């Protein structure tokens, strides 16, 4: 999926997985799709949590840029953000919300 299409799509957490927020870090249990447990890092946990709240991806991206402005190059943040989203999509951890 192209990045512009991604930003216009509403995603939700796949209902087949279970997850816990443990002190701000997300642990995912996924016995039926990837048959594994995933521990997300701090930024990954932030993105995942916002998607679970159905925050638009554009807002999540802007929040990340604001947070890491001065520390990281904006282009680098965007590239990592879209790569991470694609990883979540490929692993079916997030899915497009059906209207």
């Amino acid at each position, binding site marked *: 999926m192209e990045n512009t299409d991604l930003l216009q799509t509403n995603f939700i957490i796949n209902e087949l*997985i*279970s997850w*816990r927020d443990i*002190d701000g870090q997300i*642990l995912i249990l996924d*016995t*039926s799709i990837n*048959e594994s*447990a995933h*521990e997300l890092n701090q930024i990954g946990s932030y993105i995942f949590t916002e998607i679970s709240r159905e925050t638009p991806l554009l807002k999540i991206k802007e929040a990340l840029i604001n947070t890491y402005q001065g520390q990281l190059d904006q282009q680098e943040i965007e590239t990592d953000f879209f790569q991470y989203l694609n990883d979540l999509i490929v692993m079916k951890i997030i899915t497009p919300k059906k209207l």
Partner: protein
Amino acid sequence: MNGCFGPIKNKNLFSLKISELSNNIFLKENSFSFNFHSIPIKFYSNSLGYLELIQQYIPKDWKNEELGVFNQIYHSPPSKDIELAFDDETSSIVFEKIIDNSTTVTIQRDFVAEYNQVSNSVKAIFHPELNDGFHNFFRWYLSPKLIPLEKAMLHCSVILKKDGRANIFLGPSGAGKTTITSLAGERITLSDDMNLVAIENGKLAVYPGGVGGLYKPQVAINNSFKVANIFWLKQSSKNGIQALSPITQQKFLLASLANLNWRGFSASNQDLIFDLIDKVLRLHKITELEFRKDSSIWQYLDS
């Protein structure tokens, strides 16, 4: 959805195993009923000798002669055509094939099984012995059923302290679960690889798993022990104990659950796994145990 995890080395054998399920006859004449940690099981087998062997293995107070609803297992030994080659698969594959809405075929190195969700019955083929086929089948079959009962089969070794309480040692393959049992001297080991934990009356208990690992029946599988410590093993040049973060403890416990490849396990049941892990960790924290591969570790733990 089908799934195959790991390369299949022997595709011909793989096909033969699947055809065994439809070619073999599963007799419903002779059975033995028992409760495995409160899971009612009616085990049918074409082999009378095997039924006797199972009866000897299962503790007497687990026998269940009541009428009721059972999880039904229909066992058949491999046919003569495949008997000698049945386990001749060098990879540790797990293959699952969904036949229809209610039926799933599972193939592992030493068993093949067809599970029917509607009748709650499973046809299983493995050698009529108390070895890997029996262990792997029962571990695959029972592990998901234990979770709603606040019990779990764990990849761990368990060694009793002098006061009779249990030290549980977790870790991936090669971490030292078997090594630490071999260094334990006269201390009693439950199993070096597979044990069952249960929350009973608000406390954590551990039993010998009885379905895998090097289980020397020093302790019957219906004997439970209070838990003293849960350690995550890490080989080192020194002995020491380190605290672990809450998420690391959760992750390590999840990683230690046996047979997590539970296709069709619903999200609500996954929540039960998280709930169980929460309860276990509220009762006992997991700490990292750095240990030297010599008997000094036991002097350290005893002190």
